[in-house]
């Protein structure tokens, strides 16, 4: 074959490849509009979902979680609803949101490759503003009534308005080692005293890291007075009042941080490593069960415990949403409602140690007893201890502003 015909051959094969994948897929019956969903009985949705495939975009960086969802959860969905669950793994939800925004820009309004996505906070706000979510739908899911009303109103201050369905619950905790620190500082002010008395033994991940960002928001809420006030949109006067002392506090402890505050760990993973290497005495996480899991995996010593601040720690829910161009909407609705059921969440809490998210008083007596009987890891606080110290997540606009001010007035301050 001469080079010329070789070249022609490759051009031809490229053409064939592009034609083959340019073929539009046939429309599936699982697609319906929010108005149609409003009119359709739930039984019909379940029937439509029979025998379909649901693509679930899920953060896939946790081995135990992957095992559980690819194994028992997938089997259960197949058995109970005839649905094939396919996990679409991602590292950061923003990857999926960007993909959807790109698809919207390019006019791909149907046959999307993702039917449901695990989402919350800033990513939800971006997705909702970009109109890449299908809805409203969530208040029509049968199991949504098991969650407290407050969990169904706002996500980081962004009104939910039915565009995502509440799923799991997380609350900020700090970890310490009883063997090293018998009496951890349990308030923002006690922490200041402790840090100054133990130079180099405390630090936090640099915002905009998720965990570092929530740490500095605790300081903001502490100086802001009423945490509820941060819920209803951005208030410049309120921010000014709280941000001044917040930045002063962070600058006050800065010289006493690890490496004199000249550098910060970039991720919670690095913070965990400093903690296990005994360079610092505290780690922190959005997952109340993280320390117990690390102990079980042998990553933390068995003497590690967790605590919350006396003034409370920030908790939030995470959610499930449907992309605007999802292919199998009735399938996604069915899977969501199952994942939101007491049956599933009890099992998930047993297998993964997740915090049980429902309003317990809305469950029947048998389910309530089952929740009470859930096993807890050695380092995990009780549900009552956590819920009695719960602070609501401030509006996402405060988050952006505080991260920016931290960068300019704390990080870059000599």
């Amino acid at each position, binding site marked *: *074959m*001469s*080079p*010329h015909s*070789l*070249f022609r*051959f*490759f051009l031809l*094969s*490229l053409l064939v*490849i*592009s034609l*083959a*994948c*340019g*073929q*539009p897929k046939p429309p599936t019956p699982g697609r319906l509009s929010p108005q149609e969903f409003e009119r359709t009985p739930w039984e019909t949705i379940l029937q439509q979902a029979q025998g379909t495939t649901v*693509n679930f*975009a899920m*953060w*896939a*960086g*946790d*081995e135990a979680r*992957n*095992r559980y969802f*690819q*194994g028992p959860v997938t089997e259960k969905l197949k058995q109970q609803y005839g649905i094939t669950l396919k996990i*679409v*793994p*991602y*590292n*950061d939800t923003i*990857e*999926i949101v*960007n*993909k959807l925004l*790109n*698809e919207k*820009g*390019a*006019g*791909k309004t149907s046959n999307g*490759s*993702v039917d449901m996505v695990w989402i919350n906070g800033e990513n939800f706000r971006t997705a909702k503003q970009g109109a890449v979510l299908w809805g409203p739908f969530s208040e029509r899911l049968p199991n949504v009534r098991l969650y407290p009303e407050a969990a169904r109103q706002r996500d980081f201050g962004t009104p939910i308005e039915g565009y995502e369905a509440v799923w799991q619950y997380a609350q900020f905790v700090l970890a310490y080692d009883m063997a090293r620190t018998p009496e951890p500082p349990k308030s923002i002010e006690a922490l200041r005293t402790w840090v100054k008395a133990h130079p180099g033994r405390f630090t936090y991940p640099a915002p905009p890291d998720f965990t570092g960002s929530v740490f500095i928001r605790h300081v903001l809420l502490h100086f802001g007075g009423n945490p509820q006030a941060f819920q209803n949109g951005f208030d410049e006067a309120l921010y000014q009042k709280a941000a001044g002392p917040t930045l002063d506090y962070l600058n006050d402890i800065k010289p006493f941080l690890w490496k004199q505050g000249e550098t910060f760990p970039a*991720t*919670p*993973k690095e913070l*965990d490593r400093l903690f*296990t*290497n*005994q*360079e610092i005495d505290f780690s922190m996480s959005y997952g109340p069960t993280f320390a117990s899991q*690390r102990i079980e*995996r*042998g*990553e933390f*010593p068995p003497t590690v415990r967790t605590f919350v601040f006396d003034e409370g720690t920030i908790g939030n829910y995470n959610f499930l949403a449907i992309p605007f161009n999802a292919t199998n909407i009735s399938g996604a609705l069915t899977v969501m409602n199952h994942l939101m059921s007491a049956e599933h969440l009890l099992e998930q809490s047993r297998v993964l140690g997740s915090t049980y998210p429902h309003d317990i008083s809305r469950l029947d007596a048998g389910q309530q007893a089952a929740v009470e009987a859930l096993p807890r890891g050695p380092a995990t606080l009780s549900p009552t201890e956590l819920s009695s110290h719960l602070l609501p997540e401030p509006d996402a606009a405060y988050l952006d502003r505080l991260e920016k001010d931290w960068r300019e007035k704390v990080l870059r301050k000599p």
Partner: protein
Amino acid sequence: MNGSIRKLRNLTAGLGIAGLATVPLGLLLLWSFARGWYWPALLPRSWSLRAWEYVFSSSSGVGTGLVTSLGIALIVTLVAVGMALPAARALAWHDFPGKSGVLLLLLLPVLSPPLAAAMGVHALFVRYGLTDSVAGVVLVHLIPTVPYTTLMLAGSFARFDPDYEAQARTLGASTFAVWRTVTLPFLAPGIAAAAVFAFLISWSQYLLTLLIGGGQVITLPVLLVAFQRSGDESVTAALTLVLVAPTILVFLVASRFLRGFSGQHKNG
């Protein structure tokens, strides 16, 4: 005397280079079996097969990821070298108006920031319905690979005098025979090197695969990056080893192949 010093020096240098290459791999191997490894312990305190059990379990998706990665990388290598051969030949042997412009265009995908380029390409691929499929991922992997294969092969062609082909033809060889017995053997080391390059570039793609594959095409890097930020060092280490192993294999095979060819040239 002088010779033995040189031998010693070579040996030390060799050991040093081997050490630089194997120490990180050795650490990864230790991590993949470690259960708890804290400062100041020099070695993990206890050992566990957890990470490897996970990697070999069906729920990790490593098996299918390996097959997908391998399939895509092989097709990309084949197509990238195939596309590069005529292009490199033209660039090396012919002068034509706008040649430097063509070179610039060819290099552009490598020179532009990957993220910006990827987002633009994604929008284009969505419009033409090329996303969420293996074929789309193969096409998009060609964007960063073809510039490398073309430039490397252009170098090989430049060292090859076109008169050899003409000579063979005056002796009565057909076009195909010339290609098979004269051009191809001369270019083979260059083709092998370009193929290794193309394979490795495709093998290590993450962002383009994720964007264009839309989560439907799950290669090894997609699985690995999901674990990178999780703090699970053992699984991350095990997955990294699974990702690195084939590249070492490809490299060893290629280096043997290259050595064989250069030897043949000397003897011939």
